[in-house]
Structure formats: structure tokens, C-alpha cells
């Protein structure tokens, strides 16, 4: 490859001075070769000077190729870039407007900070050029300059020139480009300068808005998108104006460009937010254009539109309930489209259309495509949970169980469980079918957990519940999901309370296995149950299996505040990701080390972790919605009243059942005040276990090294290697949040607690910090990621530690340090 490059180099040399006819053609071929090398990633920067030499030509084709080459390599070869300045500046004065424009564009894309001084002159004259093409290039050039050197751009008074141009230029594309540039510059500048922020406000003033609106048809479709976006931020003083704007722009809904349609919809919705009736009418009006956009274009385009339609459907399902047939899936559609459609079908289901929708969903459930089948079943379940008349749906769900496909069965079990929590009256029908399912065929943890929950909850109705549980307990060692093991513990307990004689053996086995379990939660729960039983069986029943009320509404996963924020960011990525933009664009979310030189790599590295985390989060929220397990009853909305009836501790004591139970486990209720030593001697459940008295959980005082040392690279490395050992959300005092305005003081404050900051960043309302601390006398380190949201006064902590055992203690220290901030 090297040989070829040097070959090209020598050929270029030969041609540079030649004036023979046909030179240009051979130069063209050579230039093409160079560019093709460049594209495939071969470094051809070594021919830089020869390329520049050869470009002393009037041939525009050659010039263009040369500009492209220069633009690509200048950034990494600033010295060489200096070579090009000369001829680019000359070209900026060429008599051909085309060359002037191209040269100016290349000049602006060199992106070499120490060359900005050469840029100001050509840009200034470019903005005043008589050719629209040059002005168009120059007006975008200004924002490019701003990104290289903001101060140069502002000092040269370019924003003011742009503003003048924007309001007076004949050429619509120039006007549009001025608007793009000004929006960017003033938005960025507004953080530091008040003048800029008032200029930004001025962009949204009535005269400017009307200036653009009146000319809107002069602009091309792309510029229209951005103008409509801008207008959507404008707040008209009275309703007449709102109607005027809507009348003026109504025809935009007919545009073939989906982005314009969406921008118009956003504008209409924003304008009418405070006018409930009109807002409703807007929904009616936009329905047809949106549905058209969905049915046209590539699947990717439909997806972009569907995501927005999805948002609107979720906000006003009633208005779309008659259009449900539009959300039927085609067999060949990609899954991402189908998934959105399913969610919309679920949302619009009401008394009148449920039958059709559920029938359709059942067709999908038989689909060969497994993810699709799963989603469809979930959709049926969700509809069942939101409807009052679930009669037919329950039958359908139970039919799924008879299909004898593992994934269908698994998904259905989870749903049946949720359904039973809401409609206990169906237990009889469901249990009859569920009882026929062999637990051997169920592999998925969620489904297994659901089945186990039902076995425990309906132990009295299912003949062989204890025996099924027993067979599951026998395979305890093979069960890798902690969730399943936790459920197994609880269900065996519940079963034991209902059918003590049959379950006693299993209970013994399960408690033994649980206590020996390496998973902390499983171990703790088993131990907890064991001690409860030791203490008093009826109390244990009151705790583990209290009578419960049916769930009336499952909690929503997303707060309405977040939903509103997404709605405000209509027609952007937020809608597709279903999260507000700060969550994915803010610098602090982009990977922690903005100062790191290997930023690119870093952000990727961190990402894989973040995606993992986010997928967990999705799963978790999914779980919350659908898989609410018995231990999460507190999710039940408070309007149901307390879900637990407070356990009456001694009320049960003399009931016959508890007598029997006590006899069976030969339990002498030990006094609560008994020291643990004696109880371990009695070995109550004849488990053959010796439970060591756990040391009193007095938090070991953690001493931190006052002056730990850690360089950022090591931090980065460690952060990547270590697992999160503590992750929690804490509240901060409003005073602390108020004092956040001065970040330095927070960092000093934390330093006072021997916690050092290694990186910080972010803008209101989100701040992100990386802290570290070191144990005194030991080298073991604690790394903390702390995200503070000043709106909600919440901080999210992620702590990673060399020595995980002390991370809890450190967390306490950290929290107390953080919460004392601002109060002193």
C-alpha cells in the first residue's frame, strides 16, 4: 500500500508543473485515486503538499476534490493546513461564485483553532457577497467558526450580521441558514451572556415569528421543519392569534414530508395546550394525516411517525379507539413496528372494540415469531387488567395454556398470576387449568416464579401443591434464579400454613437450603422465616400470609412529569426513546470523562455498561408492571386502603390451627428476649443447623484516608472493572440543592469528609460527580458516581468498592456527608 501511495505522490509531482493538454484529465484520475484511498481508510496525508500544488488550476472538478481532501486531513495536520490557507483565501475572491462558496466552505471546515484569524475576513465578505450561494455557505460558516472559537466569532460581531441578514435577505435558504446558526449560537452563548439570552428571546418575538410564518412557503421542506419547531416555542398573547396561526399552517398537515407534518402537529398541540376543547379538536384533525404518514414510506420512517402516534395514543386513547384497525400488524412488518402497534392496540381497547382486538391478538399469539407471540400475550393480559368485563379474556388466556408451547405457557402464567391478584374471583377457573401444567416444562424464571406464587397462594385448591413444591425444592441446587428461590421460600411457607402436615418436610428442606444459600437475600429471608417460626407460628402467618385485598390498579411506571417533558419534546428522539432528552444528551450521561483523551473509547466502554443497566432498568420496570410479586404489595396504590390488615400478634395464639402447628414442629415459643445462644441450642425445627449469633450490627466506624491519591486513568480502569456494590437514591435537603450553584463549595465540603472529587460536570438540573475515597491504613478504594437532580432534590448513588464488605458503611458515611451539605 505504501508503494502505491508513493507512486501516486511521484505522479502528482510530475503533473504539478505540467501544462500539457489533457493534464487535467490525468489529474482528475489521480485525485480520484487519492480520494478512494482516503475513503477506505488508507492514510494519504503524505501527499498533502503535492495535492495542494496540483490544485492551482481553474478546473472546478479538481478543486472540489482537492477541497474534500484538505478538509479531511487539515485537522490532524495543522502545519500542512497552513499551506492551504493561501490558495483557499485566493479562491474566496474568485470571480466564479461557485468557487467562492466552495472555498469558503472548505476554509470553515479546516477546524484548526490557530487558523481562525484567516477565517474572519473571508467570512465577513462572504456574508456580504452578491451571490446567494456564497451567503448561504457563509451563514452556516459562522456557526462553524463559533464552534472552533466562540470568542473570535462574537468579537467579529458575526451574530449581529447574521441577524441583519436573516431579516433582510432575499434568498430563503440564506435566511434559513442564518436562523439555524443564530439559534445554535445564542442558545450556547445564553449560558454566559445575558445579552445573548435576550437575543434568543427576541428570536421568539412576534415580529420575527410572523416574518417567518408569512414566508413559510418560500422555504424548502427542511427549513420549514426548523421554522415550525421554532414557532412551537412562541406563546401567542390571545386565542385569535392562535387560530390565525393554525389556519395559516393547516395545509402543512397535507405535506408529503413526515417531518413537517410532525412539526405542525407539535405546533398545534403546543398552541392549544390551555384550550381543552380546541386541543381535542386538534387531536381529531391530526389523526388522518398521522395515519397516512404511518402507512407511507419505509418501515424506518413509519417507525419514527408511529413512535409519535404512540405517544399521542397513550395520552388520549379514547380519541383513537375507533381507529384501532390501523394498528393491526402485517405479517411482514418488522418487530419494532409491530411492538408499537401492539402497545397502541392495548391502549385503545375499550368496551366496544375489545372483542375484535383480543381476537386479533390471539392470532398473533400463535405466531411463529416468539418475541411477537410473547408481546401479544402480554397485550392480552394488559387489556384484561384494564377492563371490567374480563370474562372472555380469561378464557382466551387459559386457551393459551393449552397450546403447549413453552414460551406461550411461560408468558401466560405470568399474566394469570397478575390477573388473579386483581380478580381473585377467577381463581377457581384458572387454578383448574394451571394445576395441569407440569412444572418441568417451565424454564423461564419469571414464569416459574409465577407458578410457584400460585402454588403457595392457592395451596388449598391445588391438590398436589405441596408435592409440586417438594419436587421444586429438590432441585434447589440447580435453580439459578434467586427470584425463583425467594418465591419458593415464601410459597412453601404459605403452603405450610394451609396444609401443615403435608408441607412440614418440605418446609424443613427449604429453610435448610435457604439458609445455606449463598445469595444474600435468599439467605436472609430463610433466616427471617426460621426465626419467625421460632418465635410464633401464628405471628409468622400474619406476616407471611396476611389476608390481602385485590389490587385495583397497577402502578404506572413513568411519572407524569416525565411524560409531560417528553411531550414537550415532541418530534425529536425523546419520543422514540421514551425519555426526556437530558437523559441521553447531557454531557454527564455521555460517559464520565469529558477530559479523557480517549473519550471515544471511553464512552463506548461505559456505554456497554450503561446499556446493560438500562436494559435491566427496563426489565425492572416491566417487572413492576406485570410481575408484581407477592412481596411487592406496597406497589398497590394507596387509594385501596392498607393492603395488609395489621397482624394481630397475640390474637391468633389460641386458635386450634396454630396449636396443631406448634405441636407439629414441636415448637416451644421462645421468649422474644431470649438470647440467641439458647435458641440455637434447642434446634427447633430439627434442621441440624447451628446458627451462629450474628454480631450486633453496629456499623463499624469507617475511617477514611484524609489525602488519598488516585489518577484519573486508574479511576477509569477501576470503574470499568468493579461491580456496583451499592446503588441507591437519596434525598438532599433543598438548602443543599440551592448551594449546588457553587460546585466548588460542594467539592470542598466533600473533601472535608475525606471524599475527593475526580470529575464533575453537568448543567442544571442534572449534575454528575465522580468521587473516590480510600480506607485509612488500607489501600482499598471506594468509587462513587453521584447524579444529582436539583429539581427533584434527589441524588442517585452508585458505589463501587475494592472491598465490598465495607461499601455499605462507606455509603452511610457518604450519605451523611452529602446530606449535611448546605446545612452548615
Amino acid at each position, binding site marked *: 500500500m505504501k508503494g502505491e501511495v508513493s507512486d501516486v505522490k511521484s505522479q502528482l509531482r510530475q503533473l504539478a508543473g505540467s501544462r500539457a493538454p489533457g493534464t487535467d484529465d490525468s489529474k482528475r484520475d489521480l485525485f480520484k485515486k487519492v480520494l478512494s484511498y482516503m*475513503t477506505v481508510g488508507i492514510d494519504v496525508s503524505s501527499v498533502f503538499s503535492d495535492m495542494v500544488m496540483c490544485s492551482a488550476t481553474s478546473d472546478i472538478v479538481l478543486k472540489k476534490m482537492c477541497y474534500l481532501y484538505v478538509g479531511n486531513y487539515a485537522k490532524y495536520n495543522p502545519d500542512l493546513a497552513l499551506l492551504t490557507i493561501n490558495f483557499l483565501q485566493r479562491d474566496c475572491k474568485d470571480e466564479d*461564485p461557485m468557487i467562492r462558496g466552495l472555498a469558503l466552505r472548505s476554509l470553515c471546515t479546516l477546524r484548526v483553532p490557530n487558523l481562525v484569524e484567516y477565517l474572519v475576513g473571508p467570512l465577513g465578505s462572504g456574508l456580504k457577497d452578491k451571490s446567494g450561494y456564497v451567503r448561504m455557505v457563509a451563514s452556516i460558516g459562522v456557526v462553524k467558526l463559533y*464552534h472552533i472559537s466562540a470568542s473570535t466569532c462574537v468579537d467579529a460581531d458575526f451574530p449581529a450580521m447574521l441577524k441583519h441578514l436573516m431579516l433582510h435577505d432575499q434568498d430563503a435558504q440564506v435566511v434559513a441558514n442564518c436562523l439555524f446558526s443564530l439559534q445554535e449560537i445564542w442558545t450556547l452563548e445564553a449560558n454566559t451572556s445575558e445579552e445573548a439570552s435576550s437575543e434568543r428571546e427576541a428570536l421568539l418575538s412576534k415580529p420575527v415569528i410572523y416574518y417567518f410564518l408569512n414566508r413559510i412557503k418560500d422555504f424548502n421542506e427542511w427549513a420549514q421543519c426548523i421554522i415550525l419547531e421554532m414557532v412551537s416555542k412562541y406563546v401567542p398573547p390571545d386565542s385569535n392569534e392562535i387560530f390565525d396561526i393554525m389556519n395559516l399552517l393547516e395545509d402543512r398537515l397535507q405535506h408529503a414530508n413526515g417531518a413537517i407534518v410532525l412539526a405542525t402537529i407539535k405546533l398545534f398541540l403546543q398552541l392549544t395546550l390551555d384550550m381543552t376543547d380546541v386541543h381535542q379538536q386538534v387531536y381529531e384533525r391530526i389523526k388522518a394525516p398521522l395515519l397516512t404518514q404511518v402507512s407511507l414510506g419505509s418501515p424506518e420512517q413509519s417507525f419514527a411517525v408511529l413512535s409519535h402516534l404512540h405517544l399521542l395514543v397513550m395520552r388520549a386513547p379514547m380519541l383513537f379507539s375507533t381507529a384501532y384497525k390501523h394498528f*393491526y400488524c402485517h405479517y411482514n412488518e418488522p418487530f419494532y413496528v409491530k411492538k408499537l402497534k401492539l402497545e397502541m392496540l392495548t391502549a385503545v381497547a375499550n368496551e366496544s372494540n375489545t372483542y375484535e382486538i383480543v381476537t386479533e391478538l390471539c392470532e398473533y399469539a400463535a405466531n411463529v415469531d416468539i418475541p411477537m407471540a410473547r408481546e401479544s400475550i402480554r397485550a392480552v393480559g394488559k387489556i384484561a387488567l384494564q377492563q371490567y368485563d374480563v370474562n372472555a379474556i380469561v378464557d382466551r388466556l387459559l386457551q393459551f395454556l393449552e397450546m403447549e*408451547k413453552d414460551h406461550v405457557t411461560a408468558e401466560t402464567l405470568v399474566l394469570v398470576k397478575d390477573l388473579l391478584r386483581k380478580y381473585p374471583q377467577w381463581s377457581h377457573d384458572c387454578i383448574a387449568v394451571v394445576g395441569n401444567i407440569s412444572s418441568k416444562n417451565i424454564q423461564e424464571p419469571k414464569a416459574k416464579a409465577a407458578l410457584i406464587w400460585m402454588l403457595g397462594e392457592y395451596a388449598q385448591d391445588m391438590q398436589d401443591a405441596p408435592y409440586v413444591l417438594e419436587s421444586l425444592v429438590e432441585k434447589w441446587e440447580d435453580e439459578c434464579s434467586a427470584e425463583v428461590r425467594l418465591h419458593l421460600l415464601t410459597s412453601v411457607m404459605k403452603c405450610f400454613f394451609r396444609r401443615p402436615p403435608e408441607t412440614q418436610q418440605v418446609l424443613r428442606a427449604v429453610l435448610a437450603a435457604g439458609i445455606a444459600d449463598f445469595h444474600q437475600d435468599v439467605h436472609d429471608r430463610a433466616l427471617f422465616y426460621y426465626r419467625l417460626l421460632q418465635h410464633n407460628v401464628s405471628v409468622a402467618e400474619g406476616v407471611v400470609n396476611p389476608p390481602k385485598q385485590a389490587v385495583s390498579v397497577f402502578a404506572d411506571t413513568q411519572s407524569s412529569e416525565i411524560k409531560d417533558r417528553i411531550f414537550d419534546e415532541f418530534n425529536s428522539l425523546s419520543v422514540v426513546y421514551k425519555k426526556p432528552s437530558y437523559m441521553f444528551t447531557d454531557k454527564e450521561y455521555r460517559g464520565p470523562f469529558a477530559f479523557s483523551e480517549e473519550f471515544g473509547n471511553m*464512552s*463506548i466502554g461505559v*456505554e*456497554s455498561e450503561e446499556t446493560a443497566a438500562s436494559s435491566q432498568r427496563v426489565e425492572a420496570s416491566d417487572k413492576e408492571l406485570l410481575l408484581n410479586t407477592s412481596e411487592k404489595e406496597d406497589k398497590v396504590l394507596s387509594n385501596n386502603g392498607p393492603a395488609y390488615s395489621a397482624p394481630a400478634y397475640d390474637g391468633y395464639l389460641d386458635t386450634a390451627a396454630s396449636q396443631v402447628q406448634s405441636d407439629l414442629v414441636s415448637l416451644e415459643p421462645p421468649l422474644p428476649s431470649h438470647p440467641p445462644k439458647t435458641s440455637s441450642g434447642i434446634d427447633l425445627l430439627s434442621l441440624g443447623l447451628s446458627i451462629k449469633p450474628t454480631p450486633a450490627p453496629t456499623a463499624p466506624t469507617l475511617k477514611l484516608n484524609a489525602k488519598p491519591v488516585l489518577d484519573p486513568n486508574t479511576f477509569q480502569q477501576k470503574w470499568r472493572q468493579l461491580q456496583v456494590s451499592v446503588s441507591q437514591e437519596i434525598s438532599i435537603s433543598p438548602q443543599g440543592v440551592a448551594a449546588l450553584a457553587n460546585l466548588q463549595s460542594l467539592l470542598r465540603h466533600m473533601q472535608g469528609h475525606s471524599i475527593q472529587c475526580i470529575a464533575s460536570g453537568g448543567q442544571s438540573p442534572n449534575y454528575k460527580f465522580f468521587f473516590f475515597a480510600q480506607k485509612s491504613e488500607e489501600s482499598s478504594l471506594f468509587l462513587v458516581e453521584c447524579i444529582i437532580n436539583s429539581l427533584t432534590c434527589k441524588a442517585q448513588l452508585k458505589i463501587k468498592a475494592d472491598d465490598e464488605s465495607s461499601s455499605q458503611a462507606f455509603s452511610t458515611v457518604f450519605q451523611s456527608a452529602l446530606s449535611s451539605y448546605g446545612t452548615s
Partner: protein
Amino acid sequence: MPVAASAIYFLNLRGDVLINRLYRDDVGGNMVDAFRVHIMQTKELGTCPVRQIGGCSFFYMRISNVYIVIVVSSNANVACAFKFVVEAVALFKSYFGGAFDEDAIRNNFVLIYELLDEIMDFGYPQNLSPEILKLYITQEGVRSPFSSKPTDKPVPNATLQVTGAVGWRREGLVYKKNEVFLDIVESVNLLMSSKGSVLRCDVTGKVLMKCFLSGMPDLKLGLNDKIGLEKESQLKSRPAKSGKTIELDDVTFHQCVNLTRFNSEKTVSFVPPDGEFELMKYRITEGVNLPFRVLPTIKELGRTRMEVNVKVKSVFGAKMFALGVVIKIPVPKQTAKTSFQVTSGRAKYNASIDCLVWKIRKFPGQTEPTLSAEVELISTIAEKKSWTRPPIQMEFQVPMFTASGLRVRFLKVWEKSGYNTVEWVRYITKAGSYEIRC
């Protein structure tokens, strides 16, 4: 900031970069590696066209054997970005003359670089109209009109042309013969249950136009849509003519159509761009004439035999005929042997898609050919799960037939020189997703 792109990449299926263009510095140069590692080489590919990796979002789209990837780091306008890609590809196609694939890109990469420079600047889409771009683009011999001209004459302002009243059309076009070709292309989407009831049915139509007209002509198109006709009779205070009228659910127009006039007078009037373009798109859900009815009966006889009978009935006029009719009848994976009898066309078993494929090249109206097949299955012991029957799918084209019943009533061309024009109108109905459950 509603930027549409920070960088754009063209990759082949292996993930090699064919073309890349970085518009903004806010995304790193190695982003394409992230795309390869996190999307192309994983199962993620194709699960969602928008993905976030690091601080960057990736929008990607596959067109023939090329992936087009847009990378942004801000909260970009997704719909705009995808539309941009689609339009850009259409533009490239018009330059290459035909296919857009890896080879075409490799052969035309300098041209693509040139185009990418003009159609987007710093992430903001600029001008994508081929007409105007011809003025800037130097490749393939289309020389800039500026370069040869002396500058003392005021140069025609290219950008003003784009944005003026008729930005999509150059002045001074001359044709010997003035012709307009109008194609109405409809695709019928159908979902029918196994019992023969229509679950969902709609038509999406396009009006495609090819204009070879001199000067600056004004065109007016009349269709037999209900609103347009009512409006017309109102304006002319004449009772509406009886006859079939069509209710369009929704319409979108090419930017050349005067939308204000459409909204007030319900007429489609426009100054067309030169050459080929898509004038309008529409959608209809009511009163769709289905060109074909399919009546399948599939019987599973025990575990190793199946009997398939499919009757297809053409319900359009007897003088018309459909072309390229393909009926795909799914059969289970473990199909061993098939035997057919067809009254028309040819059928064979295609194991790679697990379908019986029945092709009828020319299918006259008002006929009903049938296929009866016997399918033998390999008996498998493990396979106790019943076969989920995918729907029967159908492809066809029916010339001179519109499923919606839409008709062109008139197409008027008016130009100040008053020349005569020849107008050609064609109709064709194609299958969109035409599915019959069985």
C-alpha cells in the same frame, strides 16, 4: 437543536465504510466502530432502527446491500433524518441512473461526496432538489454554468430559484413534443380472516407524473373524489353528476402543489417540476374493490398428510387481466413430498420459504382457477406442537384497474405560449400486503 445529522456513513454488509462524511465535530470518528460492534455484529441488527450507544444516537436503514447510518449526539429530529436519507437515496439514484447498491457507490464515490457536501451543511439539510443541484454538481460532465460565464453579467441566482415561487423548476425549458404521463399506482393491503371476513383493508395510492413540458406550465388535475366534486358543483352551482365518487381518507402532495388552493377550492393545481416526480399520495379505507378473493381449505389428515385446496377468484372486469400473480401457500417445515393439480398456471414447492408457490402469468377477470395439492409430511416424534399457520400471501398487478375506483376526470395544461399537449394516463393496482389467514 433539531439537527438532522452529525455524521453519515455508508457501509456495506460486512461493515466496511464505503463513504463517510463528518458534518459536526460532536461525534467521534470511531463512531462507526461502535455501530459495527454494538449493532451490526449483534442480534440487535434490525430490531430497532434507532439506537443509542454512548452519547450518540444511530439511525440506520438498509437499502439493497448498503447500510446508511446517521449519527447524532443531540436530541435530533428522527423523522427528518429518515426522510433525508430516503430523499438523498432517491437523489443518488437519479444521478446514477438506476440501482443504488455497493457497486454503484464505489463507482460514483466522488459524485456522492460532492452531493453530500451540497445537500447538508453542518448537519442541516440544504437543498435536495435534483434540478437545482445540477447547477452545482460538476461530476459526470455536468459543468457548472457559472464557470464558463463571465461575471459582469448578473449571474442567475441559483438559490433564489430554489426558493422562489417555482423553486423546483428551471426557466426556459423547451420540448419539441409536449407530453405528460400520469400513472396512478395503488397498492391494496388486505388482511382476511380464515372465515373470509375482511379484518382490515386499505389502499395507498400514488399519482406519479412524468412531464416533458416547455416553459412554465400551470397544471390542474381533476379526480373523481367526493369532496372535490362537491366543491366544484357548489362553485358552479350545478348539481353534482351522478356516478361513482371516492372518499379519500387523507392526501399528501408534492411541494409543487398549491395547498392553499387545494384547501379552498379542492382542486389540485401546480407548476410541475421537469421530469419524473410523485405528485400526490392518498389513502382510502372505505369502499375498496378487492381484485381477488381467495378461498382456502386446508385439512390436516393425521400427522403425515395434508390436503390443500385453494380457489382464487378474480373479481374485476372480464376484459381485464392481472399480471404476475403469485400465490404463496405456507406448508409445515417438515414437508416431504407434494403433488399438485392446477387449472391454470404453474405451482411448485419452495422448501426455503416453506411455501407452495403458485404462479399465474396472465390471469383474466371473472375466472376462478383452483389449486389442489396433497402434502406429505415427515412424521417427527418430538414435534407434537401444532403447526401455526402463517397467512397465504399474494402478489399481483392489475393494469387499468384501481381498487379505490379513483379516476382522472381531467388534466388541464395551461402555458402562456398556448401549445398543445398530449396526456397519457395509466392505472395499475398492485398487491401491498395481501394476506389471507388459513
